[in-house]
């Protein structure tokens, strides 16, 4: 291709050229487009690909029910390839070119941060289905995953309880990025407020995809041998977990000695590990595949049929996607349009039954109410729920434990503000 | 031409010089992974002298050149140039700047550049990066280059990439580059390898002409060529000097005959 050739294509409207940029085949009757922004290649594909499939399944199902507002839904799938700038670029493409009504996507915080400005600028809706560090509430984003107070805090409460082994000594082990950093800051503050002393808390960070855990694990072993009941709270990120657990197993650390409470290890991750040595280790989620409810069983059945794989597992972010999608559908029907502004206003207050019983409610701070479960790993790679919160816990955008955010409050209904400062009484930031 | 290669101005340090010799190689030893390439080689060369070095393969001819041009550091011994400079302590560039030019055994010219550019790169003059970026070398007149190409008979090919030249032509181009460098001492390694007799003859004449106002060391196998040079001859063997003198005396020397025919 010559220079002129290329330029005429690129310049005479990147629009024209880029017009060929999507999977969608222009369909005859009018459809409502929905963007799916999950990495299908690169390091995050491990976690995100399933979410793409769930979305496709849900959309497919909705269409069987006759779509939304009498129109069929049409999924627009793109691959941001675990590359954060590419996330922003693809988001832009989805909104500006494909004119999607809403986008479901992102897993890592950095990908969300990277697309945020795009959604604000082009005023569209992002449903974010993964548990995260909080400290955020944006008008255009709806957080259907857990905030720290819906996962970390209850988990620690459980470990402190008698059932949880009345833990006295804490290892906060995490991958060195923002989610573990913030979560651990929150937990540290919380533990101290519960009277835990500094020398009984060990905080430790390892790089992404860390694979040689010998030293770290032996450190934990040593720390755990101080005569007090010790537990590990792990915010280790997906990829590094397998070698971490393998090393724990090898060095003979059993859950009965030092239990590990993980926030990023679900059924999906366990599928990659031989769980027999891990029996008894814990995870805190708002959903477990093993929870027996009619909705859940139906969902699992549909999923396994959709994947044509009877062994396919479900996990928490999948339920979060499910809740988010259905809330969006309800909001659209309530608003009678897919216009973002209307839908954004319609969403707070929308309710959707959880797969695990109870109903999730979209709160004015764009987070939702969730039940919290603690599960123990079983030999079959599933979780046995050993504890659950009495009632649903509302998600807090701003953590009460952190200096910077304890005065902040998010309310998009009354205050129309994501970071209203109760002290100064004004809406901070822009 | 004569302008291009005028005699160097006599340097001020003439008084303090350790030796009158232009090049004074004293008892240098070199070892590669246990193999002793040079075992105490000594040699002196007077200003303006031409010297032919002969010797069987592995005698250490090229290694000696390497030691003089700074490519190889001798383990022991010293190489004094112009009475004051200890070459064993300098790198290639510095030695070249002193006015020692070298022509390699296997002709190495800059294949991807035109014949003229090859000469341009070699031309005597400031060699600093900045100078070549803005300075003098960007404004060299065509005449200066052509004069040299004339001498080595490559004027017709000035624009062609050096890669297109024949083997012999590359040899000549390299000699041309030596002239452009206008060194006080030329080290010429097997200049006529793979040349026709006619070319060899011409090369010999050229070298004799150069020798009129340059010191030259020629390493060569070809006895006829060496004879044609009409100069003093040093025969190396196993990294040391075996014999030295006129071509007749050396070629008459029984030991030389032995090492040549003995193999």
């Amino acid at each position: 291709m010559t220079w002129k050739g290329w330029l005429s294509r690129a310049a005479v409207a990147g629009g024209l050229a880029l017009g060929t940029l999507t999977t969608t085949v222009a369909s005859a009757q009018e459809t409502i487009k929905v963007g799916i922004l999950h990495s299908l290649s690169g390091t995050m594909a491990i976690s995100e690909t399933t979410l793409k499939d769930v979305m496709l399944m849900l959309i497919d199902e909705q269409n069987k029910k006759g779509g939304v507002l009498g129109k069929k839904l049409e999924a627009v799938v793109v691959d941001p390839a675990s590359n954060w700038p590419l996330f922003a670029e693809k988001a832009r493409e989805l909104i500006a070119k494909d004119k999607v009504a809403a986008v479901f996507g992102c897993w890592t915080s950095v990908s969300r941060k990277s697309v945020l400005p795009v959604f604000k600028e082009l005023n569209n809706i992002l449903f974010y289905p993964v548990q995260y560090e909080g400290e955020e509430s944006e008008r255009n984003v709806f957080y259907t995953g857990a905030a720290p107070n819906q996962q970390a805090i209850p988990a620690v409460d459980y470990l402190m309880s008698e059932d949880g082994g009345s833990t006295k000594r804490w290892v906060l082990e995490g991958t060195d990025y923002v989610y573990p950093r913030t979560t651990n800051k929150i937990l540290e503050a919380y533990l101290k407020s519960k009277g835990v002393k500094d020398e009984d808390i060990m905080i430790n960070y390892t790089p992404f995809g860390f694979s040689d855990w010998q030293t770290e694990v032996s450190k934990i072993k040593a720390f755990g041998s101080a005569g007090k009941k010790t537990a590990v709270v792990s915010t280790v990120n997906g990829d590094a977990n397998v070698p971490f657990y393998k090393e724990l197993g090898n060095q003979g650390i059993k859950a009965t000695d030092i239990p590990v409470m993980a926030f990023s290890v679900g059924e999906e991750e366990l599928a990659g590990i031989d769980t027999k040595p891990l029996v008894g280790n814990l995870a805190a989620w708002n959903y477990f595949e093993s929870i027996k409810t009619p909705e859940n069983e139906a969902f699992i059945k549909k999923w396994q049929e959709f994947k044509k794989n009877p062994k396919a597992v479900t996990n928490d972010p999948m339920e979060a996607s499910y809740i988010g999608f259905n809330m969006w559908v309800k909001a659209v029907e309530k608003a009678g349009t897919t216009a973002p502004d209307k839908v954004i206003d319609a969403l707070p207050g929308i309710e959707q039954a959880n797969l695990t019983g109870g109903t999730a409610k979209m709160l004015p701070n764009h987070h939702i109410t969730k039940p919290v479960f603690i599960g123990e790993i079983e030999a079959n790679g599933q979780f046995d729920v050993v504890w659950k919160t009495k009632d649903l816990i509302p998600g807090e955008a701003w953590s009460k434990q952190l200096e910077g955010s304890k005065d902040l409050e998010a309310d998009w209904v009354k205050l129309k503000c994501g970071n209203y400062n109760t002290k100064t009484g004004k809406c901070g930031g822009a | 031409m004569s302008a291009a290669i005028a005699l160097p101005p006599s340097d001020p340090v003439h008084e303090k010089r350790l030796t009158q010799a232009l090049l004074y190689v004293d008892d240098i030893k070199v070892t590669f992974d246990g193999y002793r390439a040079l075992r105490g080689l000594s040699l002196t060369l007077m200003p303006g002298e031409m010297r032919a070095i002969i010797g069987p393969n592995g005698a250490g001819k090229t290694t000696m050149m390497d030691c003089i041009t700074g490519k190889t550091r001798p383990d022991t011994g010293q190489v004094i140039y112009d009475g004051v400079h200890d070459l064993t302590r300098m790198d290639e560039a510095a030695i070249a700047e002193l006015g020692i030019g070298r022509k390699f055994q296997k002709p190495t010219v800059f294949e991807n550049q035109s014949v003229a550019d090859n000469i341009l790169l070699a031309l005597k003059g400031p060699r600093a990066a900045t100078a070549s970026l803005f300075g003098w070398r960007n404004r060299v007149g065509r005449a200066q280059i052509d004069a040299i190409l004339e001498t080595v008979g490559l004027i017709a090919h000035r624009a062609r990439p050096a890669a297109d030249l024949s083997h012999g032509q590359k040899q000549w181009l390299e000699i041309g580059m030596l002239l452009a460098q206008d060194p006080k001492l030329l080290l010429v390694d097997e200049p006529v390898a793979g040349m026709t007799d006619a070319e060899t003859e011409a090369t010999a004449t050229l070298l004799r002409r150069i020798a009129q106002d340059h010191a030259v060391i020629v390493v060569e196998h070809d006895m006829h060529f060496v004879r044609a040079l009409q100069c003093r001859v040093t025969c190396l063997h196993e990294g040391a000097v075996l014999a030295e003198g006129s071509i007749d005396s050396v070629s008459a020397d029984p030991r030389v005959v032995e090492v040549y025919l003995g193999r």
Partner: protein
Amino acid sequence: MRRCLVLLLVAWYAVWALPAAAQTGSDAAYARLASDSYADIEAGIAALATSGDPKAGPVLRALIDNRLFYRPDDKALAVKDGAALTDLRTGAAVSPDGFKPVRVNNRLRRAIDASLGTLNLLAPDTATRRSAADAVFKARDAAALPALDTALARESDVGVKRSMQEARAAALLAKPGGASEIDRLAAVDTIQARGDSEALAILRGLANDPAQSVRDAAARGVSGIETRQALMANVQNAWYGISLGSVLLLAAIGLAITFGVMGIINMAHGEMVMLGAYTTYLVQELIRQKAPGLFDWSLPIAIPLAFLTAGAVGILIERTVIRHLYGRPLETLLATWGISLILQQAVRSVFGPTNREVGAPSYMSGAFDLFGLSITWGRLWIVVFALAVFVALNLTLKATSFGLKTRAVTQNRRMAAAMGIRTPWIDAFTFGLGSGIAGVAGVALSQIDNVSPNLGQGYIIDSFLVVVFGGVGNLWGTLVAALTLGVANKFLEPYAGAVLGKILLLVFIILFIQKRPRGLFALKGRAVEA
């Protein structure tokens, strides 16, 4: 597993032979067990363990294996063997409807381990007795003292006796005012002699013991053990370093052939490792379905297969792409990079992007204690394996005619060809060899790392650094480099932390290359120059 089931059944019928009267004592315990409150169940466990009911052992084991069921309405308890449910009290088979499993969590597992320990102290099998003693030691329950004493009286095996004494000492020290000062002092010595981190924990716990002498003894014990452990820490680091080094060696050694010897900047090297890992996965899947008994053989079987798979792919790549690029190393970089992308995506679309489970055979799981230095079997095997591969490769290159030809070709292609060596095939097989070795490495790495499409990416850079640091084209260099980097890394890690340690190492390598521009074992002489 199966054997223990059989044992269990035997125990079971033995139990039923007993008169029903003996059981009444434990009815209360059963009542507590038939509950969904962990607190009740725990109480039930304690009661059962002390009830002297001969069924206690089997019941507790059933409980920990999730084979104990209860019927909420009438608190009936039943144990599941295979499919059948048998009522605990009546011994009659019952229908499963209405029964719910009695659930256990960590807290209960701990309790059960302790009780079972006490109950098994007299078991006929030495191993059982030892593990029982250890369980009691962990439990540190004064209630176990009588049982321990009787057991000690009968115990013949020296090792078991010692661990029982330790357990006894631990139990003694458990309740502050419990035993006499003399006994406690003796106990402290026993514990100190044990000298591991558990012992340390117990002694630390004595900081506020009523008796001054005990406090001092404990304090001495603590400092004694600590100094010893501080010493061990260095040995431990060295070992960790070696095992990390062996992993690096495995990852890099294939590259030492394709890159080091052949001069191909093989960016697809990591993917060869990945292929090896996936081969292991497939082998294990097959074994799981067809012949579970062979599971321990999965790795020995996988090794040759991985070698062949990766090797074949390697040869394919060489024949189709790389052979057109000899003498143009940089082009090989670009092409192989493309190939690595393709291979990754291929695996991703075949096996899916998620991790695959590769289990550890029995001989590779667990750890053993060597003079207080805990060595995990998995790591040990990998070290051995890495060295074995290294030796084998060296022999292939040095002692076989193939190796001779390889070296000939890589040193002087034209000359070798002139001597009638089929250079194209030598090239192909050499590349195949390098790739195959990478595949074999994949088998080992599947034991310690994710088996995912990204597996290879994690090792490619380290591998290149190792080869370059060791000196291109020199296998011994690769060996030394890998071990040096591994050990250095592990000694840095405790002080600098994992990330900073690695950064420091990289900087060191960069600076080192300035000093030795051709790596640790560079070749001197004219050949290198020019």
